[in-house]
């Protein structure tokens, strides 16, 4: 949706404000501000106060603390603080555990992303085609959205539990030596399945909404020209929902990076041998278990940088739809 400041005709009504506007936007509006706005000095600041206060205490100060802690070395009891410049970062990049954690996170987010998008696309395509029972299918597929990541992790951990899990039983029956407690690859697959299962519904909702907005006239014209459903999907729908897919890929990265903490904590605790030690989990382990404050802070800072990159990517998509100028 585009900000509609310029939609209403520029009537010279009684609410024409700012008599001495220095920067007059060409379309007759101050962008991102209602044309009919109020000019009061104190009230808006009062309205902003609650949000700014919460942000200050629980966002800005912690973020700046992470930044400042990443440059110092503190002993666990906070008695001595030593400024070490970029030492924490150097130590981090040189540590094999951190490098392997980056690799694990990369492959995990990639696998989870591919699985989620492909499954969601197939399901959305099918939902778009069927006429009967569409609402029912949608309700069922939406269910995991209600379920906490940690519960999704627990459910899958049970299914694949070597002692009691029904799927493990089948796998062992087939002669597969399935054991996520010993085999890194098994643990990795288990976490990936649980994370994808939880997130397919999210991509699915957006893809269905995007498919609904493809103009029927285009599809009908292609059908008249003899293109079948699959060809129409590939040549018309898919390109038209491209921006949505791009947006979802970025959102899946955000999800894989930051919201799968609970799944790893419930299912594998990062093991075996660091096979599922994703970056968010490592920050937690280093900060709260090993109490290595400098390293944890440096990791936070690196993750912030990555989060910023993802946000910029996301807004490259979003800016086409929303005007974020003030």
């Amino acid at each position, binding site marked *: 949706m585009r*900000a509609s*400041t310029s939609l209403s005709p520029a009537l010279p009504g*009684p609410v024409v*404000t700012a008599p001495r506007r220095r920067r007059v936007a060409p379309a007759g509006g*101050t962008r*991102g*501000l*209602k*044309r*009919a706005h*109020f*000019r009061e*000095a104190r*009230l*808006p*600041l009062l309205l*902003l106060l*609650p*949000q700014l206060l919460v942000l*200050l*205490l*629980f*966002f*800005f100060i*912690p*973020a700046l*603390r*992470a930044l400042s*802690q990443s440059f110092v070395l503190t002993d666990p009891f906070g008695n001595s603080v030593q400024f070490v410049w970029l030492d924490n970062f150097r130590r981090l990049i040189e540590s094999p555990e951190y490098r392997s954690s980056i690799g694990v996170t990369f492959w995990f987010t990639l696998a989870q992303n591919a699985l989620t998008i492909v*499954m969601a696309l197939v*399901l959305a*395509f*099918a939902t778009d085609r*069927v006429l009967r029972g569409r609402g029912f299918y949608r309700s069922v597929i*939406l269910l995991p959205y*209600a379920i906490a990541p940690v*519960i999704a992790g627990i*459910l*899958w*951990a*049970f299914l694949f*539990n070597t*002692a*009691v899990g*029904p799927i493990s*039983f089948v796998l062992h029956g087939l002669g597969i030596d399935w054991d996520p407690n010993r085999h890194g690859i098994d643990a990795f697959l288990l976490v990936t399945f649980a994370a994808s299962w939880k997130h397919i*519904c999210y991509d699915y*909702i957006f893809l269905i909404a995007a498919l609904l907005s493809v103009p029927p006239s285009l*599809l009908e014209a292609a059908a008249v020209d003899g293109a*079948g459903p*699959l060809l129409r999907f590939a040549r018309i729908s898919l390109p038209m929902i491209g921006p949505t897919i791009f947006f979802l890929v970025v959102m899946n990265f955000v999800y894989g990076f930051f919201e799968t*903490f*609970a799944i790893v*904590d419930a299912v594998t605790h990062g093991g075996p041998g660091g096979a599922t030690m994703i970056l968010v989990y490592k*920050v937690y382990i280093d*900060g709260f278990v090993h109490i290595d404050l400098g390293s944890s802070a440096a990791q*936070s800072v690196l993750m*912030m940088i990555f*989060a910023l990159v993802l946000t910029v990517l996301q807004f490259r998509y979003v800016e086409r739809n929303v005007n*974020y100028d003030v």
Partner: protein
Amino acid sequence: MVERTRGIDIACHGILILGGLLVCLPIYFAFVVGSHTVGDVLAVPPPWLPGREFFANAWAAWEKGNLGRLFVNSFIVAAGIAVGKIAVSLLSAFAIAYFRFRWRMLAFWLIFVSLMLPVEVRILPTYEAVANVALPLQWLIDALDLGRWLGIEVTLDWNMMNSYGGLILPLVASATATFLFRQFFLTVPEELAEAARIDGASPLRFFRSVLLPLSVSNIVALGIILFLYGWNQYLWPLLFTTDKNMATAVIGLKDLIPQSDTEPAWNVAMNAALLVMLPPVIVVIALQRWLVKGLVDAGK
């Protein structure tokens, strides 16, 4: 659609049924295991059909997990996050969209920046912030050396661990909702504000009598998403609650999961999982239309 394509239509139903089964598979087995005794759960082969102990296990889970208390906590935290975030966001979105004032750009960018960093990346400093909310003030006092001026040692300590505030506030501190409301306000016709001004309504009156009623559907949709988000939180309750009575249901559930050195009471654990996921599942099924609207709006 335009043509008859039986083959593809049948395949689509097949795909959707398979997808539905895949979604239901873990939930079904949670139900199966949740209705058996421990002995049956450990049997080889494992049970494939539901047993008769469902309510006994549900009762055991409720008692053992202290779920009565934890459910209340979860409701308070989830509702607190939803109400708190919507309240502060409505106010600040109103200020940014409808007022021209001196620090408008600064306020906009301060809020905008917070959109970029998920809470998960500041685990440790946020923990410190909750452990002593007054710490920034203490720094100020130390920096200005106020203690010596006043002739007393000033030590401020405001610990929010094990409190609802500590569970709610760090999650209220992000601006997604602010931008959702701001976008919505920008689509509200200018004539409404003009008319309100002509009628002599104050800004707050306009907010209360015109803007709020118009925003109801957005508020409900976002409220659902935030309630689910709050109920399903894991990392923060895990860090901020050391007192078992202040934990949330999701955290309580995790304590029921059998570890290698405890009795493998998967029947009780899985039953508890069903209980803890029940409130959000009911919300999603009952309010699906609103949820979808809210999600798609928020993604724009």
